[in-house]
């Protein structure tokens, strides 16, 4: 007896076989005239400078982290969405509290500027900001050094 997920497995195999056969058939027909230049990495006609396997923008990492939090909570919400109507108003309240917590986390990330792609200025902690303001009012010179120390 073949279960439904057995059929899905055959779908996976079918897709793999299609790609492998496609590439194999092409390998029988296609030309193969290698030259040294063909096998270089493409970089607009220049010789490639350095390796691309280097550090890239930290933004991508932050997006992945935020996504992870949301995804885990969504996995918890799917069973809730299936059954909450059986529990009436109480069921809704439980889900709503959960959703509101998620929203508070989202607002926090937004406020901290983690949803901005390019941050125009660093967001200082509020206490230091006030102090800087006061000192500007008192016409005192504020160097970066002082802000970091305080």
């Amino acid at each position, binding site marked *: *007896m*073949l279960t*439904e*997920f*057995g*059929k*899905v497995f*055959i*779908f*996976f*195999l*079918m*897709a*793999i076989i*299609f*790609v*492998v056969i*496609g*590439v194999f*058939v*092409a390998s029988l*027909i*296609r*030309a193969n*005239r290698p030259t040294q230049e*063909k*096998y*270089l*990495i*493409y*970089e607009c006609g220049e010789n*490639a400078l350095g390796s*691309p*396997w280097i550090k*890239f*923008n930290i*933004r*991508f990492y932050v997006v*992945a982290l935020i*996504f992870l939090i949301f995804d885990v909570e*969504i996995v918890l*919400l*799917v069973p809730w*969405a*299936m059954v*909450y*109507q059986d529990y*009436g*108003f109480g069921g*809704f309240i439980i*889900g*709503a509290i959960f*959703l509101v917590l*998620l*929203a508070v986390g*989202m607002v926090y990330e*937004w406020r901290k500027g983690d*949803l901005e*792609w*390019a941050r125009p200025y660093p967001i200082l902690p509020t206490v230091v900001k006030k102090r800087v303001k006061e000192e500007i009012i008192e016409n005192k010179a504020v160097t970066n050094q002082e802000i970091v120390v305080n």
Partner: protein
Amino acid sequence: MIFEFFADLLGSQILSAIIIAALPLVFIILYVLLANWLERKVSAHMQDRLGPMRVGWHGWLQPIADMIKILQKEDIVAKDADRKLFSAAPVLVFVGCYAAFAAIPFSSAFVGADLELGLLYILAVSSIVVAGILMAGWASNNKYALIGAVRSAAQIISYEIPTVFIILCIIIVSGTLNLTTLSEQQSGTFLNWYILGGDVEGWKKFALIPFMFIGFIVMYISSVAESNRTPFDLPEAESELVAGYHTEYSGMKFAMYLFAEYANMFVVSALVVAMFLGGYQSPFGYVGDLINVPWLIPIEQFFWFTVKGLFFVFVQMWLRWTLPRLRVDQLMALCWKYLIPIAFVNLLIISFLMIL
């Protein structure tokens, strides 16, 4: 059901399952040829050009000529590239797209695997594509490819969140994750489609209509973004990144990315159709019912499903030639600052409406 039909005919369930798994492949190949031709003609006519005209009547044989050309192309793997990952990446990308076809109900008689968790399954397998794209970008050892791949990954996973919130709305209203059941619930006329409140009774149906409509819009925007189409085609923005994650690919492996992209366009359209626009149900009723020929109904259902799916594929092409490409920060802002809060409030309101 077509599975039982082939199982009785051939006397083997495995053989039957293999035939069932091969039929969507035939569908994809025909559909890709059509969509490829359509994309050129649509873009040409929108820009007041003619597009391909030489090969066949109005160039309808052009995609076939292209397939023959691409079969003969040399398959180049750069010396510095990671050979194994480079060859495995197209397989993963195509598997991710094709496996989603297993749960899509083309008609009441034809569904690859009638999964109880169909919606969740489609979300799960379409994440395989992200892994494939990252592998392609990393293995190419090319700066454009790597930047394209990480951008693509960030984009696909971000836009998954509004999609899931809207799917949760549908789960709440329909009470099922099975796509066939979802389509059956929308039978009758188009008034029973979930975009018009579904089969919910009384005043709730009318209260649901605006929120379902918002849900539909959010879902469609995020699914266009998930299939990396313009205006969200940052990963393959040709003016800055050459071709994105498939810069280094050539020949048949490149064709697999093409297949996967077009297949993905149909998968997201089919998902939107199955969730909001009645799936395979006809908007008016069936000719088969009228003249009392029961075997005609599944064929009509297949026709309606294909027409609705292709219409939304056409809308994607239309958008491509209408809207300019977004910047990467605008793309992320659209997802995190607009779509997610809207989808979030939508979910809260719908879940509140349904317990009243």
